């Protein structure tokens, strides 16, 4: 057990220690707001507590994943943070990835020690052409690579959910992105309820639900607490935590990059909301947290990383994250069948 620094006079930390660390019950929305409002001097104690919660309820292993876009750009949706929307004047052009390249990327990802490979498409939902491509890709990857396959293809029908589960997709990503109360300011082409419907169908079909957040879009701390509580209510297997990287041409291109300490507070708050969930570092961390902050987050509640690059932007070199895990004495989670 790691020695923790004194918790100072911040009662929410004592509450969290009893409720989350000892009993395994996540904090509620108002409690999370107290966490997000903790002053800077309480941040080290908060991160240490979140780390202890992660170790006790998730273990010391870190889950490593690679992600790739099978269909880039030209999306009909208007998610204001996204450079792949066809409705914005973004420099990102439409590209379809061929299956041979996809398999090659899966092999390279597996060689890093990653156990997850997520195939992503910039669509409202998959059409028959995309579903056929994905099935072909899954078959080829399963033949040639030992890695779990996840997908993120937008909103699904019941039939598509069942098809993906039947093809051996073990986890499906569909993010809430932000709090229900802030969502209409970020997306107008579909509703929060539509996102929740896909999430519910994914769980019903027996796939693991990966449902994440994108913070730093101008939401309030109250809305950040609201989001963490709404995600916790969904009981996802994994929550990828993204930080806004303002993209040229999007409505959020002028948004300030989120403060690093606020990002670390959010990481700890999400861990305290969901003590046993896989909490993954995702996009934007390089910009928001830098190298030192990346380390702080891994010692503050994070227990999974996206290795290497993202869908349209570059990440830290894979070796940098893998070496950091070695430095922190955090073993990489090994492959296991979940379906």
């Amino acid at each position: 057990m790691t020695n923790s620094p004194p918790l100072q006079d911040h009662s929410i930390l004592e509450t969290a220690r009893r409720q989350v660390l000892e009993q395994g019950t996540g904090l509620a929305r108002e409690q999370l707001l107290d966490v997000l409002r903790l002053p800077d001097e309480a941040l080290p104690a908060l991160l240490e507590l979140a780390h202890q919660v992660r170790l006790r309820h998730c273990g010391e292993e870190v889950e490593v994943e690679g992600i790739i876009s099978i269909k880039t750009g030209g999306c009909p949706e208007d998610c204001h943070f996204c450079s792949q929307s066809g409705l914005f004047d973004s420099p990102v052009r439409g590209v379809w990835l061929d299956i041979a390249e996809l398999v090659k990327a899966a092999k390279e990802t597996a060689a890093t020690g990653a156990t997850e490979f997520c195939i992503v498409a910039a669509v409202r939902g998959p059409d028959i052409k995309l579903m056929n491509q994905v099935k072909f890709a899954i078959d080829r990857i399963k033949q040639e690579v030992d890695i779990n396959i996840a997908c993120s293809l937008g909103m699904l029908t019941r039939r598509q959910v069942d098809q993906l589960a039947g093809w051996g997709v073990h986890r499906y990503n569909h993010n809430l992105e932000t709090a229900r109360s802030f969502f209409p300011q970020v997306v107008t082409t579909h509703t929060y309820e539509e996102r929740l419907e896909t999430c519910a169908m994914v769980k019903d079909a027996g796939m693991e639900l990966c449902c994440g957040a994108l913070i730093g879009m101008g939401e309030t701390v109250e809305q950040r607490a609201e989001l963490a509580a709404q995600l916790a209510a969904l009981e996802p297997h994994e929550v990828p935590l993204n930080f806004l990287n303002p993209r040229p041409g999007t409505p959020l291109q002028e948004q300030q990059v989120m403060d690093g300490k606020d990002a670390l507070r959010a990481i700890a708050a999400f861990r305290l909301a969901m003590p046993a969930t896989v909490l993954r570092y995702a996009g934007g961390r390089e910009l928001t947290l830098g190298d030192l902050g990346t380390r702080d987050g891994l010692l503050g509640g994070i227990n999974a990383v996206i290795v290497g690059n993202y869908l349209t932007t570059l990440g830290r070199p894979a070796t940098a994250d893998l070496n950091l895990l070695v430095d922190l004495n955090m073993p990489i989670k090994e492959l296991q069948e979940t379906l």
Partner: protein
Amino acid sequence: MNTEDLLPPPETPYCELCGLPLQPLSLHGDAPKQEKDDGGDAPPSFHHARCADLLQLEPPRFCASCGRRLRVQVSPLGWWASCSRHGLHAS
């Protein structure tokens, strides 16, 4: 001024992030005509220094030879970018 004065010579390289010429466009020593001053501390001539910083976390978006927008595919451990005129280059 003839509008041809504003066109870069064919060999002028372009910024791979913003797509603007790296050299001033005017033959008369004026500020580049396609760049906008954003009102910040740095004059437009420094914009590409910021672009160079940003390219540490971005693949190229525009062809360095002609400024055309690139088709870009990013993968976990690399990227490739394709120009309709100048072909493919990769990480």
